[in-house]
């Protein structure tokens, strides 16, 4: 991929990412009462100046619900991304640096978590605990720790035999500083950002999926992109606006986050070359 395409991709995906972050931040400050929004005179309106995304089966403004729907996944997603990245980076660093039983233990634990089918395990947890979205985000984060830890461990192992890292040891830096600053912070940051965007996208997916299924996610009348898409079941093909916009929002957000993380990592690789 050429430099030009890389930058274009970064700008395009970065814009969407920035937009989602912006909406996610301002959304809690926008007053919204789902009960008051119901207006049976305005059912299934196409997009207009008054309702830029149209209205749904109960006459509620779709744009408003798309905006408020970000609250369902935004903070849990950030929380899970931060947690998974932190735990993954640390356990990867420990496994890459340590030897003997500690290394074996960490790698074994990671392998164990990695064999759990993610969505199936989350549904199992839901069945038993009927948890909040934060607990679900926590479980999702834990399920993602192994893949992050593996990437980081390989990197730490590769860098550990590099002369310049040895030079840092020779120079008198503490191993902790070398591991955390010289390796993780300076060399693995783009990789970690990439993994974080992945986890964020996954939490969005899980929230939307559970809300779509209806038993464990966000419950009507509170909006989630998932239960908005689920309106197809009641509409029976009557209107496209109520579910098309949230569906587009889901697809755009997930692909933008994934692309942004990937391209950032690639840009970093090419910069060093």
């Amino acid at each position, binding site marked *: 991929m050429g430099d030009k395409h890389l930058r274009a991709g970064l700008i395009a995906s970065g814009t969407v990412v920035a937009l989602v972050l912006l909406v996610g931040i301002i959304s809690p400050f926008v007053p919204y009462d789902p009960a008051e929004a119901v207006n049976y005179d305005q059912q299934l309106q196409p997009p207009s100046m008054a309702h830029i995304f149209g209205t749904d089966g109960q006459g509620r403004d779709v744009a408003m619900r798309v905006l408020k729907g970000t609250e369902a996944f935004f903070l849990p997603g950030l929380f899970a991304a931060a947690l998974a990245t932190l735990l993954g980076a640390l356990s990867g660093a420990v496994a890459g640096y340590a030897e003997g039983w500690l290394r074996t233990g960490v790698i074994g634990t990671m392998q164990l978590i990695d064999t759990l089918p993610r969505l199936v395990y989350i549904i199992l947890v839901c069945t038993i605990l009927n948890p909040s979205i934060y607990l679900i985000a926590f479980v999702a984060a834990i399920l993602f720790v192994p893949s992050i830890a593996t990437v980081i461990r390989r990197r730490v192992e590769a860098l550990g035999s590099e*002369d310049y890292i040895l030079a840092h*040891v020779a120079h*008198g830096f503490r191993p902790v500083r070398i591991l955390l600053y010289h390796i993780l912070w300076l060399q693995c940051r783009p990789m970690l950002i990439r993994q974080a965007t992945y986890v964020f996208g996954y939490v969005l997916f899980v929230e939307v999926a559970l809300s779509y299924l209806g038993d464990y996610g966000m419950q009507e009348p509170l909006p989630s992109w998932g239960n908005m898409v689920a309106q197809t079941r009641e509409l029976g093909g009557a209107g496209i606006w109520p579910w098309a916009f949230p569906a587009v929002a889901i697809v755009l957000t997930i692909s933008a986050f994934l692309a942004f993380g990937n391209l950032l990592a690639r840009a970093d690789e090419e910069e060093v070359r």
Partner: protein
Amino acid sequence: MSERSDLLSARGLVKRFKSRSLLRGGTTTIALDHVDFDVHPGEVVALIGESGSGKTTLGKVVTRLHSLDEGSVLFEGEDLFAVDRGQLREKRRAFQMVFQNQSANLHPKMSVRQMLDESLRLHRPNLDEDGRRAHADELLERVGLLPRAEQRPASLSGGEKRRAGLARILATKPKLIVADEPTSGLDAAIKLQIIDLLKQLKGEKLTYLLISHDLGLVRRIADRVLVMLKGRIIEEVPAALLGQTQFHHPYTGRLMRAADLARDRRRPPRERRDPPRVTRPDEAEARGGCVYSPDCALAERLGILSRCRKERPPPQVVGENHWIACFGAPSELAEEDDA
């Protein structure tokens, strides 16, 4: 071996590398085979020998970057392999290593100034930010890299990378610098600059352990030369006598001739090979004997080959500060030179 006090003193160093292979079983390579030597304050000791002779391993062992199987390394009288990790880090600032790979001394994501700043933060904790900046400028000035301070390694040339590495090492005010091939991979003009820099620093009471197979560099700045072969030191000779004496170990003579040959014929660097590999006949009787014996014309001529293969020759003094590990020493060596 010396009357003066030693800065660095290595006794009986043994280092083996084991390769693990599940199916074929492990193989062991002996990288250091009972190596003894001393470095006195203020002198430049050069280690020469072909690739694979164990020079770099020795450098990494005396700076405790490798572990050691047997022996001890005393730095200022203290055993480096006996101190705990905290003390070791404290001590590290006194002995620093310049790595062979030009990029190896630098973090690819940090600018030269960032690196120096980080280094000074660690080694001069009582300097404030301005103090560190001023000191970094001074160091950069010394190595002539001030205009390139904000660059990252990727945009530095080979010589500049070396200088940056040296600047960082100087930040710790080391007593001993182990320099592994400090001029390899540089073109002639840059090489001279680096040599001048090293010489200039030598004037500032620095001690070097210089690892190189660049005999030109060694003749220019070294005081004493140790010749390594297959993990053993087989000769110690004053640098001034290098190539000027008749009493070289047969292997050193061969090394000299190979270097001269390469220079005289002005071959392109690609063909300037190290002398052909030595030793086999089963690793000189599984290293009980002299490791050069299978290739040694002198031993054959003197008819002492069977002894050379079975016994390890002890050091034989052949001149002032000059010994060789060879049963053929000293008088017969002259003939070998003519052969």
